[in-house]
């Protein structure tokens, strides 16, 4: 898990950690059920106060992004919280807006774009089926 802390931009570090972990979850780079590094490990890696990491984890837990299991260990929430889903939707919409702007600039119609999206999806799922064969 790669996080980058900027000590100089005035955003409290616990918020920076929260925002970046939310982004990693929303973008799928952290998968549901995946274990996050321990508070101590992450604090030593980023050279920030362990109490700060503990606060970020606590608030992510309240927001439903992560969950604590048994006594030790923090994991990405299994079902994805409504909030994580909202974040994912936001990311996807940004990408789609970008795609549409570029497509229209190149002179494609919406129908054509949709057809190409479906074709791509078919190509990907065929590839997946092909991949499992010896």
């Amino acid at each position, binding site marked *: 898990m790669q996080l980058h802390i900027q000590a100089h931009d*005035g955003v409290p*570090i616990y918020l920076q950690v929260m925002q970046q972990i939310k982004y990693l979850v929303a973008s799928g780079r952290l998968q549901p059920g995946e274990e996050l590094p321990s508070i101590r490990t992450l604090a030593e890696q980023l*050279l920030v*106060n*362990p*109490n*700060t990491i503990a606060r970020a984890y606590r608030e992510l837990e309240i927001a439903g992004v992560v969950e604590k299991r048994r006594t030790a260990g923090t994991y990405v929430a299994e079902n994805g919280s409504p909030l994580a889903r909202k974040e994912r939707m936001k990311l996807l919409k940004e990408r789609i807006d970008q795609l549409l702007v570029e497509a229209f600039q190149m002179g494609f119609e919406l129908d054509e774009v949709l057809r190409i999206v479906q074709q791509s999806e078919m190509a990907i799922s065929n590839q997946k089926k092909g991949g499992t064969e010896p």
Partner: protein
Amino acid sequence: MSDSMSVPCEHVVDIRKLDRSFGPKRALQDITLQIPRGKVFGLIGGNGAGKTTLIKHILGAHYAESGSVRVFGFDPVTHPVEVLGRIGYMSEDRDIPYWMRVQEIMNYTRSFFPKWDASFAEELREMFDLDPKQRIRTLSRGQTARVCLLVALAHRPELLVLDEPSSGLDPIVRRDILAAIVQTVADEGRTVLFSSHLLDEVERLADRVAILHEGRVLLEGELDAIQESFRRITLRFEHAFPEAPSILGAIEYRGSGHEWTYVCRGDREQLIQAAKTVKAEVVHETPISLDEIFVCSVNRS
């Protein structure tokens, strides 16, 4: 003595209304601050602000002229054994007996601390790549700092006090020092007090901070809360102004013409309301860094 019995106390350090003068110079004025157990406390201030003088009161090297200083519930001047045995201290000028060898300073320091952990000391010595036979005198500045850090850490102190620990050091040694702070506080219940003028270090590590200026505490509290209370807001006015229009709640401003940028503390709503009444529009809003908070606080004092 009743205060000797107050163990375990919630505040490792408890300073109330402390005053101290050196001749005509008032070095500390009306200092009140508490350092909670298990937290990292960052003391911020320029040269001559009183950081080292304050730290020396905590170590019992200075008595309180008026007011009180309690460390682990004890007066450090009258109870040096109870206090100093539980503190690991690294001084600003890193004065250790320079004629000794690394192994000798380790043996020497060990004799003062019943809780000295010899295997941990050895682990640190190897990690810091220190030759036990080398004389302190011949060490580089960075290696000397590592020796000081080793002797401050090896008895696993309940309170680690570092006075300007990273001044004049290269980034690699600074990393060792920051890592030592992180590890100390990660061990349940241990507390760190460090002074620094490198504010990005304080931002990374401190739970609480105090800004000290000319012997007074200008600002003290939870770092996150302090950072969240300060905002920088840029307003665009209908008309150009030769000087900043005064806005209620603003503590600092700069800009020109139509656009003026204000800093406010905790009065964001008030400032935005005030802006509306003079038909100014908020065009930009950002948090501000601890550096800027420090400058703002000093300028206002």
